């Protein structure tokens, strides 16, 4: 099966501070890829480098066969990204934010957006500043999914979502991946990876290790966090 995401020797440092070191990974088409690691391990840095928010010091990122720097705009057309913190323009209404994201994509996504809003039980008339974190996360999910992208990149998507919405969210991911989409899911919730992912990698102190299977024993996972010297 073809690789839709291919990262080779990606390094990003913030001055003297560590970012990520020599990260390489491949995600295959149709996969739900679990990207595990403790806070500050470098998961967000990897994702932000992939999407062009950060300029890596070394390495290459290829998404859907395109170079992440040269074909940045083309790649973003086919990607749905949900950042770890869902921030939008405070004065806009939910419906305006969703339409704004679709307008910039040059698409009419009203039908899909309507379906997603209904499943996520969203009140689109509310202003962003009136929303809780969980509800802002839902807006973020709609903005990432409404254009039916080929690749989803989620950075800690379930924090702030209630259990029912978490279930709906993963049902949606499954439905899209069944239709051929690919998902990179960054999280530090082991159960999400065990339950939903088909392959996984774990990051610690800026370095990435591919896992043989996403089914990881919880004790082993905790030991991984605790023992910083141990290599996986």
């Amino acid at each position, binding site marked *: 099966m073809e690789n839709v995401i291919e990262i080779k020797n990606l390094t990003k440092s*913030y001055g003297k501070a560590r970012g990520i070191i020599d990260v390489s990974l491949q995600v295959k088409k149709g996969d739900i890829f679990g990207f595990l690691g403790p806070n500050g391990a470098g998961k967000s840095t990897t994702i932000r480098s992939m999407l062009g928010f950060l*300029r890596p010091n070394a390495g290459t990122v290829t998404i859907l066969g395109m170079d992440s720097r040269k074909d940045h705009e083309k790649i*973003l057309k086919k990607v749905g990204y949900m950042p770890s913190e869902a921030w939008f323009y405070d004065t806009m209404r939910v419906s305006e934010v969703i339409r704004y994201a679709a307008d910039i994509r040059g698409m009419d996504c009203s039908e899909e957006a309507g379906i997603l809003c209904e499943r996520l039980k969203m009140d689109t008339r509310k202003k962003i500043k009136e929303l809780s974190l969980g509800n802002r996360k839902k807006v973020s999910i709609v903005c990432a999914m409404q254009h039916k992208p080929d690749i989803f990149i989620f950075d800690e998507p379930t924090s702030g979502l209630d259990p029912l919405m978490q279930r709906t969210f993963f049902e949606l991911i499954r439905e899209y991946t069944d239709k051929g989409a690919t998902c990179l899911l960054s999280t530090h919730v082991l159960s999400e990876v065990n339950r939903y992912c088909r392959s996984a990698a774990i990051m610690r102190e800026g370095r990435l290790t591919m896992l043989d299977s996403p089914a990881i024993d919880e004790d082993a996972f905790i030991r991984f966090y605790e023992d910083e010297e141990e290599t996986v």
Partner: protein
Amino acid sequence: MRSVLLRELKQNMKLLLIWTLAVGGMGFYCILLYQSMQGEMKEMADMFSNMGAFSDAFGMSTLSIATLPGFFATEVGTIHGLGSGMFAALVSIGILSKEEDRHTGEFLLALPLSRNKVVTAKALCVLVMLVIFTVVCGLFYLGGIACLDAEFSGSDLFTYLVRQFLMNAEIAGICFLISAISSRIKMGLGLGLAMMFYAFDLIGRVVPDLKDYLFIGPYSYANASEIFSGEDTPVASLCLAATLLAVSIIGAYACYNRRDLQS
């Protein structure tokens, strides 16, 4: 890009409305005041024109405050010069950096837009705002002048407004560059810069040793007294302004494209 431009314009509409009405309205009111003060002006004009460096600084040594052009240059010129400079700084100083300051940068830049397009849309927004501000203020001043039965050169007013617009664009350009470099809204710095440029021009006209360096500041070529008294076009100053504006805009594109986005 069109969507970003329209959203920016909508978001800045209140700021535009407040500043245009405040500056234009004050100018309009000042012009109308001329009629009621006309009789008492003659003695005041003599006094103001003989106050040495102070008269030079406010242009009252070259233009009589008793005439409408002189009154306009000293009173409305000060209000518009300072007000428009502050408005230009306010509009542009946070236009790029606010995305990071308010944590909306990831949402915007995860959409299929190159950073160049974001910078272009935001720069266009600043340009449109400055054009509307200048045109509406100009209409206020024309309205005020039309209410009075006095001689006034339309071409001088046009030249004045065009040069003020360039001055605003220069200040906005510098602030735009700061906005592209910074990840925080530097409102104080923007307003401080506009006021510093104004003060530099004012001091430069009072202190003889500074006169040779006056052309550096953006207020030097937009001085109402010089324009209404028909002084020669300050070519060096205008060329420097155009160069600074171009460098600021190119610099903003280069910096915004190269730097890491704060989350």
